[in-house]
């Protein structure tokens, strides 16, 4: 095992650089260290000017997403020992505008997320005295997988369609639409289907499948998108045959 490992970190300081550059750092190699630990070591001991996002260190918050050796990863779950002997290339997430060093702007994603209405929508709320909306374990199981999404946007950085067509609403937003549309308490599946049938919606996806491979939480946005396409096609066909019943 080596004593140290090199990190090649992308830097972008907009006040005095017009394009990103690379800076090398040498950090101690420890078997239990992840890339985020190495970045924290750099920030604390070597170079306080390095900017990056992180919070929970345990794959829950989805803040520390970066490209590690060209692959989108949660840096809190990417062990240095998997990259021996190094160097380890750390870059900001692909396809997103870079604000500074390893920090990207997620504004676009947040707009897209809001667009699919990722919350429970009822046509009419039942009165409080009737109690809560109950769900069987089977009903929970039907959407649970999609509810594991932590908005880390690794799936966007893995998606060449998003890279080429920045307007594409993207894998996580569609997976979260599916999460609410599958929920037995929700009544807005058709509304979301119509939102996703727009030009920037699910039909932009060409089924590359990298989003599901990149997902650290096993969500399978790839499956959600294809199922939406199937639902969209069935709905279109129904509205063609029975225009009134499909409404």
């Amino acid at each position, binding site marked *: 095992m080596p004593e140290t490992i090199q990190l090649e970190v992308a830097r972008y300081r*907009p006040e005095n650089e017009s394009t990103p550059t690379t800076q090398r750092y040498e950090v101690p190699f420890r078997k239990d260290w992840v890339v985020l630990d190495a970045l924290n070591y750099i920030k604390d001991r070597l170079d306080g000017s390095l900017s990056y996002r992180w919070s929970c260190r345990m794959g829950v918050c989805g803040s520390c997403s970066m490209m590690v050796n060209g692959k989108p990863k949660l840096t809190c779950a990417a062990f240095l020992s998997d990259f021996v002997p190094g160097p380890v290339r750390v870059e900001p997430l692909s396809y997103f505008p870079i604000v500074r060093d390893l920090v990207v702007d997620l*504004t676009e994603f947040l707009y897209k997320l809001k667009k699919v209405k990722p919350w429970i929508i009822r046509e009419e709320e039942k009165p409080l005295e009737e109690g809560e909306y109950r769900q069987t374990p089977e009903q929970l199981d039907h959407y649970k997988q999609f509810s594991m999404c932590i908005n880390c946007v690794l799936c966007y950085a893995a998606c060449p369609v998003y890279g080429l067509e920045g307007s594409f609403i993207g894998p996580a937003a569609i997976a979260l639409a599916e999460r609410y549309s599958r929920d037995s308490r929700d009544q807005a599946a058709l509304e979301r289907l119509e939102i996703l049938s727009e030009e920037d919606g699910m039909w932009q996806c060409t089924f590359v*499948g990298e989003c599901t491979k990149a997902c650290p939480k096993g969500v399978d946005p790839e499956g959600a998108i294809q199922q939406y396409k199937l639902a969209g096609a069935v709905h279109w066909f129904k509205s063609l045959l029975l225009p009134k019943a499909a409404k």
Partner: protein
Amino acid sequence: MSEGTGHTPFHPKWYRRRVSVWWWLESWTYARFVLREITSVAVAFFALVMLWQLRALAEGPEAYARFFARLQSPWFLLLHGVALVFILYHSLTWFHLAPKAMSLRLGGRRVPDAAIVAMNYLMWLAASGFVVWLALRG
């Protein structure tokens, strides 16, 4: 998605990387995806040949004989060989992707992916068997 994504006077000075036209050579999975998309040209080729065949059939026995003779030229045989390889790649990859688009539930449980893939293979075998039966019937 235009709302709220434009520049404002207080907006950070973004750096946006351009995606190279060779993006699909960056990883083997991207290249495989592009190859799968290209195989649709072979599907279109077979469809066109079939339309040509139908037209020859409608025009009578002589036209059909001419069509048949053209098909036996070495270039056409080579083209068909290449198209067949592409179509096999096309079909087999789509068989394996089918479970992604189908979330079937039987008796409250999700039908396993392998069962959906197997169904595709079985239907393919049945259809091929029917074609062979039609051709060998005499």
